[in-house]
């Protein structure tokens, strides 16, 4: 059973919105362990709540639109206080944690990594402007995962 879940969020057909998918693919290529599940989605839906509840650690990776914040934003996620009443098709990481806790009574520690995208036009390629940031994102994601792999004493292989 997996104890770490890594979820890439976004639409891979809309340029930099696919950063989450791209990053998860790269992580999966370089890290092998039966106790890590790598998964990707266009939007977080309630069906993820069960898997998340079974994990000890969840890492969400997504792109974000232009902002004044740091290039790579790292947030510790806590469950939302209030459910978004009508949004059963789309939850944010805090919402899905709240859902997991209410349904299954437990949640993992969770971190969300986001990087600013530049182009969200149609296309399956990450924009040139964003590529460098994604490399930095990968480095940080690997550091976080390494820490958790050691903390949970999980055997893994770096490919």
């Amino acid at each position: 059973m997996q104890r770490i879940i890594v979820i890439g969020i976004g639409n891979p057909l809309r340029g930099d919105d696919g950063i989450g998918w791209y990053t998860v693919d790269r992580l999966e290529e370089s890290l092998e362990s039966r106790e890590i599940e790598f998964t990707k989605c266009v939007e977080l839906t309630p069906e993820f709540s069960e898997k998340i509840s079974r994990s000890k650690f969840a890492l969400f990776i997504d792109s974000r639109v232009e902002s004044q914040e740091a290039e790579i934003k790292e947030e510790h996620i806590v469950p939302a206080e209030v459910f978004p009443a009508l949004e059963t098709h789309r939850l944010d990481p805090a919402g899905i944690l709240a859902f997991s806790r209410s349904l299954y009574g437990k949640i993992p520690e969770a971190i969300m990594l986001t990087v600013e995208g530049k182009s969200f036009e149609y296309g399956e390629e990450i924009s040139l402007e964003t590529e460098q940031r994604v490399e930095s994102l990968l480095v940080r994601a690997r550091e976080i995962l390494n820490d958790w792999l050691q903390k949970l004493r999980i055997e893994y292989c770096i490919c």
Partner: protein
Amino acid sequence: MSKQIIIDPVTRIEGHGKITIQLDEDGGVKDAFFQVTQIRGFEKFCEGRPFYEMPSLMARICGICPVSHLVASAKACDQILGVRIPSAAEKLRRIMNLAQMIQSHALSFFYLASPDLLLGMDSDPAERNIFGVLKKNPTLARDGVRLRQMGQQMIEWLAGKRIHPSWIVPGGVNERLTVEKRDQILSMIPEGLFIAQRTYDWFRGVFGKFQKEIQTFANFPTLFMGLVDDDGGLEHYDGKIRIMDASGSTIADKLEPENYQQFIGEAVEPFTYLKFPYYKPFGYDDGIYRVGPLARLNIAKRCGTEIADKMLEDFRKLGQDVVSSSFHYHYARLIEIVYGFEKIKELLESPDILNSRIRAYAEPNRLEGIGVSEAPRGTLIHHYKVDDNGLMVWANLIIATGHNNLAMNRGVLQVAKNYISGTKIPEGVLNRIEAVIRAYDPCLSCSTHAAGQMPLQVDLRNHDGEIVDRIVR
């Protein structure tokens, strides 16, 4: 002076709509319109594209039921190729179609309808959602999440991904089923059946509390239409069209789906982008009919699986000749979830299910193809014409939700007449107006091939067309 009520948006449906209720000079409900004000135009922008792109392209019509569009589109393309697909491929397509029906029905029943059923039509709207269900009956909420997860997981195991998979292709499917995947899916069936039956038992215990809704939620005589198999049994992938009237008499049977234009007409009204299909021999709008789970169980002689057939016996007792209240779409959905699990098991245990012959290859041999299947919400028709190079020159899509358009409009009118008095709509009444539409589980994004957000609005208009009340969600 007559008045008009506007409800905008209708909530907890797939897509967004608007309702206008026309009052007469005495303040009584004169007419009601369910308006869908969104359009995307798949029928037009597919023109010029190669036909073999259609399954993937048309699947983008919807994020809930992309598999339905894949199936109907691929069947239309099979006809253009002029091939009969291998037996294993047909079974695999059937399995994926049923897996999608399970997840779609679970979404409709648990996420959209169960708040009304568990908490009541007049409960606090702030709590009347899946999160309110979660608080009051966590088991029910967990069951909904689990059933939907199972349907999606089966699709992912078969096709590689759960939304917009491209595994179903013209001529068959593009990858055979492995022993490992077959066994993974089979291992889910007992739990799925257990949850589905538990939900069925729960629903049987509560639906009696909704007698007035059962009597007034689109409870009127209409025709019912859908596919049946060679023996008149429940069918979701192939078969022939059967049409039954409100007395339970089959008025047309063994109709070739490819001849749909001979018996289905499509009317257009200026207030909505959603067309109004009707049964041609009866004319517009006497040819009103319903499709989907309620219609399928009304027209079918049997489900053909053990547990679902026992449930069907109880279902038949809900009506005299046919089950005519659209409230019972919910009931029918639960039976179809059970049937889905049973039928998937049966198909997976077929001797040839692992066969490596899964795709027929050919160049285009015909300039026209029509694919018809049963989507969760009803009969789905994809009709394409191509040129000598296989490029699309014309497409016509009749989507399940569209077939129910006349019945949805008439249902809104029936509820409005039964519950509205005066020029204001109490919240519980607003919810009932929405709930009658919700019973059909319409997918407006599919049926108009829509894009973007169009929340629901209810307008109450007076005799002169002046808006006297408007509710916007």
